């Protein structure tokens, strides 16, 4: 069982959305290029085609111009994800960063082997405030299983390059449940990560996603060890909470306000926007946008994307309408991943009251008071409820 507290004890209530909901304050930019494709990855990535980096950045900038009307004058967050954004030709990356709108939080994803002191300085110079570093594991043999190029020393070295360049908000990605990973390997990984004192940690269980090379090679083994892996998640949470991190989202941890010298809120503001159901615009191939009750996904194919934007046309998109009921369902699904309570009034009608009572009895969910203006209070999951979040959410939805 996981001990309390779970990081911050004073969890602030869910913030209300800004009133002008149709003006988007969160921008995602997809940079698909990678040196090679890791076996477990199912993101939209492009390997090779170095010659097309410039054309791709041109296209991104064209798409940004076409969509600029959707964006608020001042953005809260910008997030450059991939792919490997830091694998993009430095000159092109620089051109992109120079034109992208400024924001309170600008995050770039990076792979350790791509981070040099020059790159760190480039990012810093162009207003990047946060870097998310894909460490995954510090065990050389497990990095090999994941097809990762970097070695454990690359991870550490890149981390210090970023610190030296002045980054005071660095996140590390860790993956657990790698075929062959023993509990002691996981414990050692966490200690290595903690030794770097990152502001933020994302810990993911390796998902064998259908269709990946990895699932083909290791799927059977992953299924076999599924039950043994159940305890891994618990031990990750336990250890990080004990080290002063706040488990603010199912897979995300940040140094708690009290533990951070400046009392900063170190949660990923960009990702919080997703979990709070805010609108966001995504640029680039395979990028998803959700704006005003509609969701669309841009074509994942590079050719048609570039061709359309060369002619200043919007690229092909797959559209998904989101009726009110679906939006409420998603708010429950996403909101319950967070440690901040979800005001019941905002998801009225989406909850199964009988299931809620049952889950309360089982100690998996609880209603907490929210003050006089929120008669129904807010819903939150207990630590155990969060470990069982998908099943609990499936029960809770009416």
């Amino acid at each position, binding site marked *: 069982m996981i001990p309390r507290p779970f990081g911050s004890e004073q969890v602030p209530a869910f913030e209300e959305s800004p009133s002008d909901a149709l003006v988007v304050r969160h921008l995602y930019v997809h940079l698909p290029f990678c040196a090679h494709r890791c076996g477990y990855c199912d993101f939209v990535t492009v390997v090779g085609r170095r010659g097309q980096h410039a054309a791709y950045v041109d296209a991104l900038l064209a798409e940004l111009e076409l969509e600029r009307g959707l964006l608020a004058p001042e953005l809260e967050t910008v997030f450059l994800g991939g792919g490997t954004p830091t694998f993009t030709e430095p000159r092109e990356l620089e051109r992109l960063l120079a034109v992208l709108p400024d924001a309170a939080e600008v995050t770039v994803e990076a792979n350790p082997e791509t981070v040099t002191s020059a790159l760190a300085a480039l990012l810093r110079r162009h207003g990047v405030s946060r870097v998310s570093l894909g460490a995954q594991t510090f065990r050389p043999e497990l990095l090999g299983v994941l097809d990762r190029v970097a070695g454990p020393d690359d991870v550490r070295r890149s981390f210090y390059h970023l610190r030296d360049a002045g980054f005071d908000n660095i996140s590390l990605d860790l993956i657990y449940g790698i075929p062959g990973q023993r509990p002691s390997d996981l414990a050692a990984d966490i200690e290595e990560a903690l030794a770097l004192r990152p502001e933020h940690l994302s810990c993911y*269980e390796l*998902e064998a996603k259908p269709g990946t090379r990895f699932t083909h090679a290791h799927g059977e083994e992953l299924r076999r060890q599924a039950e043994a892996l159940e305890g891994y998640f*618990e031990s990750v949470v336990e250890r990080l909470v004990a080290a002063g991190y706040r488990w603010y989202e199912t897979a995300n941890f940040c140094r708690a306000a009290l533990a951070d010298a400046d009392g900063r809120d170190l949660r990923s503001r960009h990702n919080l926007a997703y979990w709070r159901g805010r609108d966001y615009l995504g640029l680039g191939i395979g990028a998803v946008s959700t704006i005003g009750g509609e969701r669309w996904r841009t074509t994942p194919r590079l050719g048609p994307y570039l061709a359309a934007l060369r002619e200043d046309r919007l690229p092909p998109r797959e559209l998904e309408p989101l009726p009110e009921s679906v939006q409420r369902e998603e708010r429950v699904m996403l909101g319950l991943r967070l440690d901040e309570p979800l005001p019941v009034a905002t998801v009225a009608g989406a909850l199964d009251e009988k299931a809620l009572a049952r889950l309360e009895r089982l100690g998996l969910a609880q209603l907490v008071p929210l003050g006089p203006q929120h008669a129904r209070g807010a819903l939150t999951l207990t630590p155990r409820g969060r470990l069982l979040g998908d099943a609990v959410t499936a029960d809770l939805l009416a």
Partner: protein
Amino acid sequence: MDLGRIRNFSIIAHIDHGKSTLADRILELTKTVSGREMRAQVLDTMELERERGITIKAQAVRVNWKDNELNLIDTPGHVDFTYEVSRSLQACEGAVLVVDAAQGVEAQTVANAYLAIENNLEIVPVVNKIDLPQADPDGAAAELAELVGGKQEDVLRISAKTGEGVAEVLDAIVERIHSPSGEPAAASRALVFDSSYDQYRGVVAFVRMVDGAFAAGEPLQAMAQGTRFEAEEVGFFSPTMKAAETLGAGEVGYVITGLKDVSRLRVGDTLTSERKPAAEPLPGYKDVKPMVFAGLFPTDSDDYPDLRDALERLKLNDAALFYEPETSQALGFGFRCGFLGLLHMEIVRERLEREFDLDLLVTAPNVAYRVLERNGEWLEVHNPAEMPRELDAVEEPYVRASIIVPKDYVGPVMELNNDRRGRFDHMEYLSPERVLLAYELPLAEIVLDYYDQLKSRTRGYASFDYDVAGFREGALARVDILIGDEPVDALSMIVHRDAAYARGKALVERLRKEIPRQYFDVAVQAAIGSRVIARETVKAKRKDVLAKCYGGDISRKRKLLEKQKAGKRRMKQVGAVEVPQEAFLAVLNLNDGKK
């Protein structure tokens, strides 16, 4: 019609040995139906009968052959309908016994032949399918002659498919089978050998007039049940209904009763005229009782009223079908249904699913038990969950089973029968190669998967038949299953004490695999009374959440969640535990692992 020119006969055969094809050829050859009207197997009217090649309801057709009136009484071809077969045979003076030249005599052939001999019928033995390349007409004829105690040269050899030898069969019927005896002037008596239900005309009784005659409009009475009605119409089939003024002694035909419920006129009863009632009914009436029971539940509880209507309608045409409402805390509202046997159950279930488009969950079948309660009273129990926990004695039905196998498979069959608490009775060599094994077995031991086991242990060569021999006391125990301390009525079973531990253990192991892990540990236990005989634990799950969910993952994740939600909706709630419907059928497949 002059009694001397009437012949009443049946065709009896094992499934697929060609009974219906022979009947079709007879209809053609006697010009009862024109070639244009002819469609294969005219007599099997129900879709299901045609598809499975089984005749469920007997019918009677009048044909003319060389100035004789021949009444062909079609009989059901399966063990479950033995009583109907015996009534049909009682309406005849003779039977054409058909055996496939490639298959030889089968268990059902033997059972039907004995039935015919018991009814004093003249038997016309016929070897069919002589046109098949693998046919062994001599071997089949030898077996057949041995069986009926006749001469091999009296066995006719035909191909119903090509028509070869069919005229000779008709001649033999006229020559060998004697004409009906009966008293045209006596008080009227007619045997009801079958009935069917017509939506517009009510119950139609198929009768064999023994004495006297019936006329249209005559008030009649069913002697055993006391049901009274007026004969709205009398007539015969040729092959469709043809009204007649009267139905005379020795003839076979129908009476339209106008009754709205088949259960008011049972097969085997005797009809007589109210104007001049007979003193004694014809012998042999027996109230057939269902021996095999199962719960039928709609998969979707909203379909309950539809299931009730469907059963009502089936019952109109199937007096042997029994049903009563049943409530299971696990499966909701449904019906406990009684059947003559397994095939009958299978047919009812298929008709419900096919003709009425219902999605059903059928519980493991069980037999009827007779229980001597502590207060000295006997109780009949149709559902293991109703078996009193305190009792003085339990009796279960036994059957006389005949199994015919090639001699090499005698060992495996004996082994199976020993496992199933069988008592060996005797063994006969039908030919140097083929052996008939006679056993007494508890019906409970054959309702689950006996037939499948028999087939798999004999590579499909065994043929099997049984009839109910009566109730015997047994050392039986009621085993209850508890999921999370809640007893699950639908999983209770009654088993022999010696097998209780093994069966209980196998069932809880099976259930542990079928029940998905929950938020808490779930104990699955088998118990006799308060004594737990087996226990397994479904461990609580510790983690059920997908690791990452960002802007591009939301739709996929929501769809997964909706799928998970839909999966939960299909679960049945047992106390606080969610149990998939398939788990309730675990008991059906308990022996899977042994195969």
